[in-house]
């Protein structure tokens, strides 16, 4: 028996699992890397066409074990479960098939006895509003992980503003995908701190409802289904739309705007022309108390240029496991409030889970501890390198 297989098979009983993370790969490159690890270094990697032929047939299942540590000594054991949604099948046309995959992944998580399950990336989007479609469960709680995602997006924006010497109170904030769970959470946290917010999504009714809520708090709000129709240019942008592929062009934003791409897959198209803008990938946190994968998927399942960086949605499940709070912390689209974000931030921070260093497709955005930030070169297109990968 191959070493890696034997070692995984002999790990203790599955019921010792505290948390499970449900995810999917955002690109074929990422999927290929996962399969290459599973295949082992002694075998030639599968050709791309074989990967595209094989992956859609893989039923949802655990891929690896994780051990996460807290800076106060707590430890939690978990599993990463992939739903194996093919990276090019996130569109609405595949929604039923994808819901079935997430259900299958959820069933795996329940079978392992995981006490808390994070629904990463599109998993929560597919299941939100359909939690009754999950298999029957007794001691397994599900969280979308979006509260910690919002926390890290907001922290990232604030950090970059501070580094760039921008005054948040004088900023115009555009949120694309504003009515979504992540987008509306960001709106609730940041709107009261900025001069004006521009909210964008396709459904105008939902935009109106969110605008009314914010206006009631004295926020200056504009809504539009087309980014071209706003009366002002944004100098802060959060991209949090549930796009199946990086296709957002953004259009007119202020020169030198700060742009957070929080999408998974990324929102920004490689063709987006963001002259002079500073782009960073948002919603990411870093574990400082230790993270181990078995087999070793480090840098494969978390493809970031810094160690132990993980998406906020997945980190929320780990933070709750370390805290011993096995509850559906984030559920129900549009219910993320500032108070809940602060509560989740405090839980994460207690265990050493903090904002990840800011980076984009070209590498780190922060240049050393005092933060000389790197501008997007004039002809460079955001997200291009990411997509190329």
């Amino acid at each position, binding site marked *: *028996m*191959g070493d*890696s*297989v034997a070692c*995984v*098979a*002999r790990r203790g009983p*599955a019921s010792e699992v505290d948390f499970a993370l449900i995810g999917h790969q955002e690109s074929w490159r990422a999927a290929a890397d996962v*399969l290459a690890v*599973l*295949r*082992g270094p002694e*075998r030639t990697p*599968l*050709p791309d066409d*074989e990967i595209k*032929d*094989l992956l*859609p*047939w*893989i*039923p949802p*299942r*655990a*891929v*690896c*074990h994780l051990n996460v540590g807290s800076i106060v000594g707590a430890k939690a054991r978990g*599993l990463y479960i992939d739903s194996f949604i093919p990276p090019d099948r996130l569109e609405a046309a595949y929604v039923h098939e994808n819901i079935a995959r997430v259900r299958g992944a959820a069933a*795996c998580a329940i079978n392992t006895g995981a006490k808390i399950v994070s629904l990463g990336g599109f998993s929560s989007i597919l299941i939100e509003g359909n939690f009754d479609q999950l298999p029957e469960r007794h001691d397994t709680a599900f969280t979308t992980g979006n509260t910690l995602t919002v926390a890290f997006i907001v922290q990232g924006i604030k950090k970059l503003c501070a580094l760039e010497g921008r005054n948040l109170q004088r900023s115009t904030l555009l949120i694309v995908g504003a009515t979504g769970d992540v987008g509306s959470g960001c709106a609730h946290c940041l709107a009261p701190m900025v001069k004006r917010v521009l909210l964008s999504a396709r459904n105008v009714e939902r935009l109106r409802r969110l605008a009314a809520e914010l206006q009631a708090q004295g926020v200056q709000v504009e809504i539009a289904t087309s980014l071209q129709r706003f009366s002002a240019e944004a100098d802060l942008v959060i991209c949090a739309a549930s796009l199946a592929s990086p296709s957002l062009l953004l259009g007119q934003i202020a020169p030198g705007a700060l742009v957070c791409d929080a999408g998974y897959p990324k929102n920004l198209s490689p063709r987006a022309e963001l002259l002079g803008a500073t782009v960073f990938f948002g919603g990411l946190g870093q574990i400082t108390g230790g993270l181990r994968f078995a*087999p070793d998927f480090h840098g494969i399942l978390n493809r970031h240029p810094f160690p132990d960086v993980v998406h906020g949605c997945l980190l929320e499940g780990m933070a709750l496991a370390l805290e011993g709070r096995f509850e559906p912390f984030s559920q129900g689209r549009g219910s993320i409030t500032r108070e809940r974000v602060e509560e989740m931030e405090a839980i994460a921070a207690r265990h050493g889970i903090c904002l990840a260093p800011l980076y984009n497709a070209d590498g780190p955005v922060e240049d050393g501890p005092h933060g000389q930030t790197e501008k997007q070169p004039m002809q460079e297109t955001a997200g291009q390198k990411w997509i190329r990968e």
Partner: protein
Amino acid sequence: MEPLIDVKASPMECTSLSTSAPIWQDILAQAMTGELLAAMNYASLSEICDDPAEVADALEHAQGERGHAAAFAAEGIKIGVDVPSNVDAKHWKRLRDAFLRCIAERDFIGCLIVQEIMLESFAVASYSRVGKVAPGSLGKTFARIAAEEEDHVDHAMSILRAERALAAQRFDDKVYRLHLEVMTTLAQMLAKECKDGHCEVCHASCVKPRLFDVSLSAAELRGASLRQYLRTLDMLGIPGEVTLSWVTQLPV
């Protein structure tokens, strides 16, 4: 040697399938070979069973598989083709040899793993796919036999689960050892292109490139078979991350 199958059909359904008939002929030949091999495997299994009930069970299974082979032969006649079979064709022979090694070791559980978990996963999945696209009674026959094969798997599942409950690691190691032998051969057989020469079952050149003409593909048959196999291993309780690495390590 007694005839392995008893064909009862008349060439009534010779219809407009003339262009695709050679493709169905090869598909039927592969299926019939698999059924005859299964019949031989069950007959061999009956020889190592101690319990008379198990002997009767194995012989009944062997008879059932011969019935399936006959049904496929009959479908061939209906579309006007002769359905050859070749249990000595290279891949099939290797599968038979793997089974015979279990027989030689009087390893009843090993036999069930090879036949019911591995070979039947392939049969259930591929027959189901063929059943969806094949016209008329040809499609119905594939679908019906797929369902019957699934019953075989269910029957074995309870025995195998009980065996795994006794010593999970030992059981999983055995499945892995057999996987390396049997599933590697099945994977080569199901590869999108035959890289190591003629399969010795198709009547002319390999049928795989022509499967598109009947709304099938080699990639789809392989994918469906591996999915079925993974699901069957899940039902046995083998950890999903372990079986995932097994499957991703197979040749393509």
